[in-house]
C-alpha cells in the first residue's frame, strides 16, 4: 500500500465484507489487517501455527476471509484511484470512503465521486475474482462482491439529493 490513508480505506472496506460474510472473524480483524499490511503474501498464503513442543491443534487449514477481503479491498481501491476516478479531483480517500458509506458528509470544495454502472460492474468482478483466486467458492465471492457494491448503493441512496 502506498499511504496510511489508503490502508485505513482498505481496512474499512474489507471490514464491511467480513462483517457481512464472516462476522466470526471480526474480533481479530484489527490484528489480522495489521499482519496483512506487514506481509500480504504470507497472510494470504495461510499456514500452520509453527512448531512447538507444547502445541495442540488440528493440522487442517481454515480458509480465513479477512486476508482475502483485505486483498479484494486493496484491488478495488487501486482500481478506483488508478482508473475509475481522477485522483486530482479527490482529496485522499475521503470521497471514496463516502462512496461506500464509510465517511462523513463532503466538504464544500470537495467533489463527490460517482461511478458508472460499468464501473460498478468492474468493482464487482474484481472482488469476485480475488475471492475465487484465493480459494473461496463462487457463492462466497458473490456475497462479498454484492456487499461492496451494495454498500456503495446504500450510501448513494442515503445521500441528500
Amino acid at each position: 500500500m502506498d499511504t496510511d490513508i489508503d490502508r485505513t480505506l482498505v481496512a474499512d472496506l474489507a471490514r464491511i465484507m467480513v462483517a457481512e460474510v464472516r462476522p466470526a472473524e471480526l474480533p481479530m480483524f484489527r490484528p489480522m489487517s495489521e499482519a496483512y499490511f506487514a506481509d500480504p503474501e504470507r497472510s494470504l498464503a495461510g499456514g500452520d501455527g509453527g512448531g512447538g513442543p507444547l502445541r495442540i491443534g488440528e493440522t487442517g487449514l481454515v480458509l480465513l476471509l479477512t486476508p482475502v477481503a483485505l486483498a479484494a479491498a486493496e484491488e478495488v481501491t487501486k482500481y478506483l484511484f488508478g482508473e475509475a476516478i481522477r485522483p486530482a479531483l479527490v482529496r485522499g480517500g475521503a470521497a471514496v470512503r463516502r462512496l461506500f458509506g464509510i465517511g462523513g458528509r463532503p466538504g464544500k470544495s470537495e467533489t463527490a465521486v460517482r461511478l458508472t454502472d460499468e464501473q460498478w460492474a468492474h468493482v464487482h468482478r474484481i472482488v469476485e475474482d480475488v475471492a475465487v483466486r484465493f480459494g473461496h467458492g463462487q457463492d462466497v465471492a458473490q456475497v462479498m462482491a454484492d456487499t461492496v457494491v451494495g454498500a456503495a448503493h446504500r450510501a448513494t441512496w442515503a445521500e441528500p439529493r
Partner: protein
Amino acid sequence: MTSTPQALGPPGTAAYEPRPAPAGTTVLFALLVSTVLITSSVVYMFLWGIVVPSRATRLGTAMRTCWGREQSIINHPVKTLADLARLGDAADRAERCLRPIYAEQASWTVACVAALFAVAVVIYWAYPLWFVRRRGLTPILREDCPELVDELERLSRAAGLDRAPTFLLAPYASTSGGLAFGRWRRRYVQLDAGLLVGYTTDRGRFQAVVLHELAHLRNRDVDTTYLTMSIWWSFVALALVPTAVVTLHPQLFTTPLRWRPPKGALPLSVGLALLVLTLLLYLTRNAILRVRETYADARVGEAAHGGESDRPAVALRAVVDGLAPPDRWRAALGTHPHPGRRRQAIDDPAAMLSPRSWELFAAGMATAVMVANLRYVFDQLLQTRVIVSSAGTGMICVLGVAVPLVTAVWRAAGRAPAHRLPVRAILPMPVVLVAGYLLGEQLSWVSVLVGWTAMVTGGVEQSLAAAILLLAGAVTLAFWTASVAHTAPSPGRRGRGVLPAVAAAGTAAFLPWFGVWVSAHDRQGLLATLDPTIIVPPLRAGAPGWYAAVTYWAEMDYPPFLYLTHNPLTLPALTLLWLVPVIVVNRRRGSLRGPEEDPYRVRDALITGLVGAVVFALAGAVLLYALKEMVPASVRHDLNSFPYSVQSALAALAVIAQALVAATVATFARRHRPVLIPLAIFTTGSLATGITLLGLNTAGRCVDLYENRPPACFRLPEAGLTADFLHTVLVEGAVATVPAALLGALLQVLVTRLRRLGHPGTADPRPHRPATRVILTTALALLVTVAILGALAEAPHAYEIWTG
C-alpha cells in the same frame, strides 16, 4: 516433583485439588540435565588434548612417568588384604603425581561446561522473543473484543491459574491450534487465527484447546519443556558437533586443510558412544515432552470426571481425533504422544498412573552413563582415593535410580489405593530399571572409550553377581515403597509432601548399598575379593572342631561389605526404612496416634524384636558357657585372638536372631512386612548389642573366660567398639533378613492355604491389641537415638577405613 490436579471446579473458580500422582518428568528432567552435565564434562576432557595437541603429549608423558614408578607394585599378584592395600596406595600415589596436569584439564572442562549451560539459558530466554517475532504474534486486546478477553480470563481462572497469561494471536496461522510458551514469570498462549474463528462457531473446541494450553501452564510445563529443548540444542551445538568434527578429522587442529580418514577402532568407538549418547538424550527429551502433553489432556479430562461440564473434554477428544495419526515409531519416540494414548488420558485420567517402563529403563540407562562418566571426572579432577570417588559417585547418582523407582511404584499404587499392588505388578519395575542400568553402563562414553567396566572385563560371573545384587537392592526398595504407598494418607489434607518424604527416605536407605555396590563393581568386580585366601580366617591350633567352625564362619570377611558396615550412613538409612512410614501415617498432631488407628502393628514388631533379643541373650549365655567348658585355657587366654573370636561369634548369633525375627514377622504379619521387619530387627540388633557389651562380656569376665582373675567384671565399653559392634550386627542382620523374610513369607502362604483347607471361608482376624502412645513413642525415640549415636560414634573409624 511435578504433579497434576484432580478436578476442575465450576467456571470462574480456582478449583483444582492437588493430586498425589507425580508425572515423573521432573525426575527425567533432572536426569537429562545431569547426563548432559557429566557427559559434556567427559567430552570436554577428551577435547582438551585434541584442541591443543601439545596438551595430549604432556599428559601422555606425565602418565608414563607417574604410573611407571608404581609398576612393580601394580604387577605384583594380589593374594592378601595387605596386597590390596598396597595396590590402592600405589594408585593413590600415581594419581597425586598426575594432579597438576589434571587440574589444568579440570579448569578447561569447567569453563566449557559453564559455557554450555550459559548458552542453554540464553536459548531459553530468547525462545519466546523468537516465537513472537518470527510468527508475528500480537496481543489480543480487550478493545478488539471484550467478550473474547472475558472468556479467556474465565478459562484461566477455571484452570486454576492465579494470573492469566498473555494471549497472543498468530495472524498468519490459519490452523486451529494453540501453543503455550514463555520463560520465567512471563507466560504466553498462542492462539491461531483459525482457532479464534471457533470462538464463535465452535465454542467447545475453542475452550478445549485453550484449556489444554492453560493446563500446561498449571502443570508448570513451560520451564521444564523449554529448558529441556534449550539444553538439548546447546549440547548439540557445543558438545556433539565439535566432537563429531574432531572424530572425523582428528588432525583438524594440526593440519586443518589435509584430511585423512581416521584410523583404528577409536573413531568407531567414539562414534558409537556419541550415537548412543545422542539417542539417549534425544529420547529422554521427547519422553518428557510426550508426558507433558498427556498430562495436560488428563487435566482437561479430569474436569469432566470431577463433576464439571464434560464439554471441553468431549471437544478435546474431537480435537485429538482430528490430529494426523503419526506412524508407530514417531508416536513411540517423537515429541507428541499417539492420539490413542491421549484419548485414554482424557477418558480415564487414572490411566496416567500406569507404570511407564521406558521411563524406568531410560532412568537406569541415564544413571549408568552418569555413574561411569562421573567416576571418571571425580578420579581425574578430585584426586581422592579410588574407593571414595567410586562410592561417592554411587551415592550421588543413587538419586537417578531410587527416585524414579519409588515414584513409579507410588504411581502404580495410586491407581487402586484400596488394594495392595500384586507382586507381578511390582517386580517388572526394578527389573526394567536394572536392565536399563546394565545396558547404559556398557554404552557410556567412558566405557566405550576406555573399556574399563567390570561388566566387559570381569567375565560372565562378575556380571551376573553384579546384576543380581543390584536387582536385589532395587526389588527390596520397590516392595518397601509399595508397602508404604498402600498406607500413605489420601491426597488433600495430609497427602502433601508424603511422596517427597518417602522418596527421600527410600533414596537415603538405598544410598549406602548403591554406593558400595558401584565401588566394588567398578574396581575389581564384586567376586574378585571373594578369594578364599583373602577372606577365610586362620584356624586356631588346639581348639575343638566346633570352635574352629564357629570362628571360621563368624570371622569371614568380605572387603566390599566392610565399607557398608563401617559407614556412618548405614544406620540412619536402616532407621529411615521404618521411621518415615510410621511418621507419615501418624503425623497428625505431630505425634504417634493411638494404636487403634495405626495401620502398622508397631507394637507387635517391637515385641517380636524384644523376644528376639531375649533369645539371643540365652543363646549367648549358652555359648559363653560352652566356650568356658570346652575350649582349652591356652586358647582362651590368647588375648590377641580369643576375645575377637568371641565377639565375632556373638555378633553372628545376633545376626541369626535377627534373621529369626525377620522370618517370624514375615510369617505372622499380614501386611506391611517391608516396614515392620526393619523395625523388628533393628530392635533385636540394638538390644543384642547392649546385652553383649554390658551383659555377656561382663559375665565372661566374671567367669574368667578370657584371663585369670580380671581386675573387674564390669567395664564400660568404648564408644568406637560399641558402634563397630552395633554396625556389624545391624548391617549383617539386614542382609540376612532378606532370605529369612522370603522364607517367612513362603511359610505364611503355606499356613494360610492349609488353614483354608481345614476351615474354608474363615479368615484370621487377629486382634490388634493396643499399647499406649507414650510407650510406643518412647520405644521408637530410643531406637532413633541408638541409630544417631551409633552413626556418630562410628564416624571416626569409618573415616580411617575409607581414607586408608
